[in-house]
């Protein structure tokens, strides 16, 4: 990639009546990807295009390092029942390839407390689970670090597990990033989520309406076709003409006096 080549091929560009004399094969590389661009017109436009490309390349090269921050995604809130288990998912986005030294860290801050305690760490290809803290024997690593997934599974939940879980992932050399938090809420009875019943009722009724309308028109169509087939078999082509004109009512603007009791 890079450099410019001159080719004296003759090309006809759509919409332009004359054959282009000097089509430049210009390749520009940025971000490791080569793109070749063919300007569509004569030399004046070519130089404009080159200036534009140069500016874009410079802009991307200067912006690129700043956009190389790692972005971590967890959920916002997780609801779970007492005694059940919950999966806290954590994944990240990074411009770099997933390195072998990728690390995941989970820490926990109980509701109402200001201190957080580290409960999980994945490094050097091995997960390290909490064996002394509040989650000993209840944690399980269910993620796939090579697929950028650092999820953990917490079993046998209790009310004391209410709190904020923070996931921090690092993908060397891409280490600048903001950890992301997910709140865990433990219920004894799962509350109905806002809008589920509403949506279900509205959806069901409207779906029923659509179904009824479709069935009605289908029935009408089938009955009309059946009548049509019968009349064709009985009367031949004569009936065909009659059916066609009967099925369609002429559309006219209705006169103003057209309602009565």
């Amino acid at each position, binding site marked *: 990639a890079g450099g410019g080549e001159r080719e004296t091929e003759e090309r006809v560009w759509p919409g332009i009546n004359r054959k282009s004399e000097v089509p430049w094969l210009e390749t520009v590389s940025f971000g490791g990807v080569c793109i070749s661009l063919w300007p569509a017109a004569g030399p004046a436009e070519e130089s404009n295009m080159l200036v534009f490309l140069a500016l874009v390349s410079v802009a991307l090269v200067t912006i690129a390092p700043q956009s190389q921050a790692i972005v971590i995604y967890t959920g916002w809130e997780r609801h779970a029942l007492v005694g059940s288990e919950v999966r806290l998912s954590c994944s990240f986005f990074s411009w770099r390839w997933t390195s072998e030294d990728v690390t995941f860290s989970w820490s926990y801050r109980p509701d109402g407390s200001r201190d957080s305690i580290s409960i999980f760490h994945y490094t050097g290809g091995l997960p390290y689970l909490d064996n002394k803290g509040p989650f000993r024997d209840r944690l399980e690593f269910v993620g796939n670090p090579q697929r950028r997934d650092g999820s953990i599974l917490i079993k046998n939940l209790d009310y004391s597990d209410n709190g904020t879980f923070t996931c921090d992932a690092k993908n060397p050399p891409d280490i600048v990033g903001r950890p992301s938090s997910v709140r865990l809420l433990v219920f004894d009875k799962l*509350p*109905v989520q*806002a*809008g*589920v*019943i*509403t*949506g*279900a*009722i*509205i959806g069901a*009724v*409207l779906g029923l309406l659509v179904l009824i309308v479709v069935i009605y028109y289908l029935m009408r169509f089938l009955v009309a076709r059946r009548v049509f087939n019968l009349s064709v078999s009985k009367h031949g082509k004569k009936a065909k003409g009659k059916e066609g004109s009967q099925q369609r*009512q002429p*559309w006219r603007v*209705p*006169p*103003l*006096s*057209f*309602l*009565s*009791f």
Partner: protein
Amino acid sequence: MLVLLAGIFLLHITAIILLLVATIDNAWWFTDTMSTDVWARWVKINNFWNYTDLPGHYPQEYLQAVQATSVLACIFSILGLFVFVGQLFTLAKGQRFTFSGIFQLIACLCIMIAASIYTDIFHKDEKYGWYGHSFILAWIAFVLTFISTIIYFVLRKKTA
């Protein structure tokens, strides 16, 4: 006759407007510092109205049933208007506007369900407070849609 058509149209559109106001405006129940239901609550704090969630002790299923049926009433009424206009052009002579009547009937039933559930379940033990304009409009819309239904079921198309 044109007056009759305009009157029927106006009745239907008024019913739609009342239904929309009742559904959208959070004003089913008032106190001096609060205007609430069915979606959220406006609370007056330090002379500023704040938009807050409905309290958790509300029976969720009934609340969502009120939400769903009031929305359905709006939808069916609006669809009924289009069905009525369609039927004006496509009905044969002497036939009744049953389809439009059915849509208005469903809208009437839905808003009746919504308003009834709200009347019977919410704010029963609260001494302090009064019903707001959305609640009243919901009941008035019930009456209007009922009248509209009757009209559509009785009305006949005179000339094709």
